[in-house]
Each structure stands twice: as C-alpha cells, then as structure tokens.
C-alpha cells in the first residue's frame, strides 16, 4: 500500500514539469527556479549599485564639484552600500545556496519550499521601496548605510520607507536562513554525517545561524529609530534620556557578524573550487569547520572595534582590540589550508580557479589591512578614512564578489548543460583583477594621507590617486558586462558532461547536466557517490 503511494508520488513528480509562463516564477517552489531568480536579482542589483558607484567615482575623479550636489552624493554612498550588501552580495549567496545545497546533500528540494518563494519575492518589493525613495521629497536616505542617529532622523519623507525596506530585507534573510538550516539538518542523504558535509554547506550552515542571530537585532534597532521619530520614544535621543551612541553599539552588534555573513559562504565556495582544480582533497576539512565556527563566535564580541573614537574606557578598548586581533588566527588557518590544498596538487587554471586564486590573494590583503585596523591607537588614524574604504572593499569585492563569480562559473555548466566561453571568462577575470586593484589599492594611500570617507569633494593633494581610482572603477564596471555576455550566451557552448570538471567531487556532479527540474527524489548513497570520484 505505502509503496504504491510512494510510486504514485514519484510518478507524479516525473510528469510534473514546470508550469508555463510567468506563473512558473511567481509561484515557484522549486529550489532551482528560486535559486535562478535570486541570482538574476542579485546581478541586477549589482549593476544598479554599481551605477551608483559610478556616480560617486565620477564626482570624485577630479577636485571640485562637477555633477551632483553633496546631499545627492551622500544618498549615493548610502544607497550603494545598502544595495550592494543586502541586494547584491547576500542574495547571490542565497541563490547559490538554493541551487547547490540540495544538490550537494542529496535532497529533493529545500525543506520549506513555500517559505522559499516568499523569502525571494519579498526582496524585489523591499528594493522597489528603497529605490523609490530616490524620487521622494527630501531625497533618498543620506546618512550612510550605518544609519546613525541623530543624523538619520533628519532624513526626509524617505525615512519610514527606509526602515520598512530594511525590515523586509531582514525578514527575507531570516526566512532564507531558517530554510537553509532545516534543509541541512533534516534533508541530508542518509549516510552523510554532519562533519562529512561539503565545505560550502558547512559555511552556509554557520552563516544561517549568524543571520538568525543578528538580523532581528538590526530590525530591533531600526524599529527603535522609527519609534523615536514618530512615536515619542527616546531610545537614542539625549533630550529624553536616551543615548545616540547606544545605536552604534546595537548596530555593530549586528554589523560585525554581518561582515562574516558576507564572507563565510565565500570561504565555502572557494573551498569547493580549489580542491577540484588542484585535483586533491581539501586540506584540513575539520579544521576548516572549526575555524569557521570560531570566526562566527568571535564576531559577536568585537563590535566596538568600529567605535574606537566614540569615547570608550581604556579597558573596553583593550578588550575589543585583543578580541579583534584574535580573529586573524582562524582566518589565517583558512588561508593556510587553501595553500596546503594547492601544494603538490595538479593544478589547472580554468576561470573558476582563477577567481578563487584571486580571492585568496586579494582577500588576504584585505585581511592584512583588517589586522592593521584592529590596532586601536592606529585605528584612531585610520577610522572613517579611505583606508577603511579600501579595506572593506578588498574583502567584499575581490573577496565576496570574486567568490560569487567563481561559484557562478564553476556551476554554470551544471545549471545550463553547456560550457561557457572559457576565453571570455579568463578575460573577465584578468580585467576584473587589474581594475579592482587600480580602484581600491590607491585608496589605502588616500586614507593614510588624510582623506575622510563619505565626502563629495576633496583637497587638491588627493587628486592623483582619486583620478586613478575613478579610472579603475569604470574599468571594473565595464568588465562586468563581459560576465553578462558570457551568461547570456552560455546556452550556445558545447554540451557539458555530468562531471563537468576533471577533478569534480561531490553529489552535485552525479546528476545530469543541466540538472533536471527534480533531482534526488530518492535519496542517494552519499558515500558511494563520493567514492565514485576518488
């Protein structure tokens, strides 16, 4: 009896392909379709946020105010950050998680398909609202993505819409994170133990817990801003006994783990790719897991390193400095393990590997400047300058974004069933690498020489490096069009094999290319599948 029911269900699955038309996407509960939508959404936001970066770099190309007013400039830096953080980087990783986690752990879909649909479709609404503030009286939010009061309370009509859109982004992320955790905990192939999970899955599991822990805290902080503005509370208003500095504490209690939310999945992606193209297993799988977990833990106790200039007792400064420096240890372990994975491998340099290598080099440079920033007395000089801008762009652009690109190239043949254009892929990598350094490396010098961040115009002594950075930024922006072309033409390439890469490892490569709409309707034997490739 029960077997016939199961058969019938299976049968229904086989017949049941995607519905036609827009309904397939609007009401989709299929992890692959939702993953695709996340990735397309993220790419769109990447270009919108990128266009704002181009406005910023145009204005800063030479001294003097040429194109925009200072208020609008501030709106651009604020919106650029919000869009890139919440609209481009985070949804890209959620997209990769949607596509790949079920395939990697041998699950038929995400555990909560309908919630999955909701968590995606909230995002376009959230960003529609956020972008609409550009047209509102008083302009778009211009207080920086950090939204410090009292400045943020001077936002015009856009203020409640800013808060509402941040709430929606938070709800979307939390639902996505819950889905990832439930999928990983409950839907793994029967003989895949937790510690045996692929590194991408592991890093996402940690990220998902971070998301659930801190996105609600951000929601709380912006809710307090909202009630301070409209409902007479004084959480952050000194006049009513509140404290504006408290917002900074609560914000960075969210904000520092947020940094790792944007980098841990990137660690996961490159930890999949480097072994494949080194034709060697990931070195120190377990220590990678422990390092990732320690980073996540430490991220909760270092928040005030963003606030060394705010006026802190000596003991506080000491504590936050030491805790922050400690993060260098597990981060170092990760880098060393990647290098050890490459060591005595048999490497080839396809585009995913190039982006991963670029990631390891350039993320490490961002790590170095991060270590410098941890030194509290020196941070007093670096804080709120272009040195900080250089630092976090190194970890986010050739860090997170390169890892996302690496993942996209790595799994694109599995998604489309065709090989992308390798020559163009390599060109995309080299141009991106050259221009990303041209853009962000000079910013270190600007910051050290005394240029504050978030200013629309600057003293003439900063002119040369700003011009170089602007040229680099335009070069980087244009280079990303190659990526769009590669993706659009990916369906024209030669047919991809199921295995795609010679050194592939893991369950996702046991399903056909392109991956059919339904996969693993019966659970695979994970160990068998993995051993097939050894």
């Amino acid at each position, binding site marked *: 009896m029960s077997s016939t029911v199961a058969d019938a269900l299976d049968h229904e699955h086989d017949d049941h392909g995607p519905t036609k038309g827009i309904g397939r996407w609007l009401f989709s509960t299929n992890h692959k379709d939702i993953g695709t939508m996340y990735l397309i959404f993220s790419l769109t936001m990447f270009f919108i946020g990128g266009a704002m970066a181009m406005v910023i770099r145009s204005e800063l190309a030479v001294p003097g105010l040429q194109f925009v007013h200072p208020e609008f400039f501030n709106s651009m830096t604020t919106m650029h950050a919000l869009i890139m953080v919440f609209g481009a980087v985070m949804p890209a990783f959620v997209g990769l998680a949607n596509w790949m986690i079920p395939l990697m752990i041998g699950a038929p879909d995400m555990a909560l398909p309908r919630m999955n649909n909701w968590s995606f479709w909230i995002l376009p609404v959230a960003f529609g609202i956020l972008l609409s503030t550009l047209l509102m009286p008083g302009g778009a939010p211009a207080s920086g993505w950090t939204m410090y009061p009292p400045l943020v309370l001077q936002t015009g009509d856009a203020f409640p819409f800013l808060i509402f859109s941040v709430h929606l982004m938070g709800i979307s992320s939390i639902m996505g*994170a819950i889905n990832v955790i439930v999928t990983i905990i409950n839907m793994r192939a029967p003989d895949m133990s937790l510690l045996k999970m692929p590194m991408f899955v592991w890093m996402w599991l940690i990220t998902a817990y971070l998301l659930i822990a801190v996105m609600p805290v951000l929601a709380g902080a912006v809710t307090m801003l909202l009630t301070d503005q409209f409902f007479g509370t004084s959480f952050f208003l000194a006049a009513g006994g509140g404290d504006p500095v408290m917002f900074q504490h609560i914000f960075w209690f969210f904000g520092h783990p947020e940094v790792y939310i944007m980098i841990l999945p990137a660690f996961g992606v490159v930890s999949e790719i480097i072994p494949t193209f080194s034709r060697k297993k990931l070195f120190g799988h377990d220590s990678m897991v422990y390092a990732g977990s320690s980073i996540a833990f430490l991220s909760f106790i270092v928040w005030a390193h963003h606030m060394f200039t705010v006026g802190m007792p000596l003991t506080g400064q000491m504590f936050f400095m030491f805790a922050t420096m400690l993060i260098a240890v597990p981060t170092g372990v990760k880098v060393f393990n990647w290098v050890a994975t490459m060591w005595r491998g048999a490497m080839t340099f396809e585009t995913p590997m190039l982006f991963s290598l670029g990631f390891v080099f350039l993320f490490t440079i961002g790590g170095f400047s991060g270590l410098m920033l941890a030194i509290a007395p020196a941070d007093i000089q670096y804080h709120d300058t272009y040195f900080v801008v250089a630092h976090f762009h190194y970890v986010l652009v050739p860090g997170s974004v390169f890892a996302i690109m690496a993942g996209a190239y790595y799994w694109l043949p599995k998604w489309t069933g065709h090989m992308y254009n390798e020559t163009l892929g390599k060109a995309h990598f080299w141009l991106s690498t050259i221009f990303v350094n041209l853009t962000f490396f000079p910013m270190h010098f600007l910051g050290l020489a005394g240029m504050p961040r978030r200013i629309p115009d600057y003293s003439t002594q900063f002119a040369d490096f700003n011009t170089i950075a602007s040229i680099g930024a335009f070069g980087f922006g244009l280079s990303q069009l190659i990526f769009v072309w590669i993706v659009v033409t990916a369906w024209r390439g030669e047919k991809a094999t199921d295995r795609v890469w010679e050194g592939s490892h893991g369950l996702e490569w046991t399903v056909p290319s392109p991956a059919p709409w339904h996969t693993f309707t019966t659970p695979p034997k994970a160990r068998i599948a993995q051993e097939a490739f050894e």
Partner: protein
Amino acid sequence: MHENRSLTGRLLVLAAAMFGFGFALVPLYDVFCEITGFGGRTNATAAVVEEAPDLTREIRIEFMTTVNSYAPFELSSDVSSMTVNPGKMYFATFTGKNLSGENKIAVARPSVAPPAASEHFVKIECFCFESQEFAAGEERAMPLQFIVDPELPDYVDTITLGYTFYDTARAAANNPL
C-alpha cells in the same frame, strides 16, 4: 515533515528572541554604562552618601555647558572650575535663562569625562534630576550638590562635568533641527 515543522518553529522562536534581545540591549546597555563609565553616564536620581573627606588629595572639577540645537536658552556655571577633596560635599550653582517670549521647559543632560570618573562623580542634588520650567524671559539659579567618591582611580586628576540644555517641546515634536 514533522521534523521540519518543529525545527522551523524553534528557529522562529530563536529569531523572535533575538528581536527581543535587541530591545533588551537597552537596559543592558545602561547597566554596562554604569559599570564601565561608557558614555559619561552619572547617576540620574539623587544618591545618599556619607561624607568621608580625603584631605590628602585634590581633584579639579571643570564645568561645561551647552545648549542643544540652538534652543532658546542660556546655560552657564557660576564658576568655571573648582578644586575639591574626595569624600567631601560641595555646592555649585548654574544659571539658566529662557531667551524666548514664551514659557519653556528645559531638561539638562549631564555627562562626565573621562569615562573612568563617571561612576565616581556622585550627585546628591541636581537640577538635572527634573525638568526645569522657565517663564518667558525668566532667569534662575539652579543648584548642584555633589561628592567625589574617594575610590576615584588615581590616574584621574581632573573631572569635567558637562550639561546640555534641551528644549523639551522640541524634543517632543521630534524635530531635530
């Protein structure tokens, strides 16, 4: 299916708890500030302390007054600084003035620097404990009675006490400018 639902439920509870934790950070932050002196907090209600003068040590107290957001007040201290012994009670007087032609209510927000001193600057009586009503154009002296705790770390020799005057009407209207 059942497993999924119960784990989802637990994670939702965790998310809700973290939302609550965000708000719980508000009182936690107050405690944190009182312990560490973060934010220059001092006691907001009258304290009762025994005098135990330490005549071997002298501390310089500097007063600083500000009016926020161009509020129509004047606030000044009658002396700009004084030298005190820890453990001994002192009085100081501040003068507030309503520059506008209407009745106004002001609140004074105290802040102490350096942070290490803030828990050791103890106010016995202070005009900042309550809001201050001013008739149009009124000028009034306002008292402060304080004691410096002898436990004050020895690397502090100067304490700055700052008061910022706010117009409560404006604060209520939440119009920051």
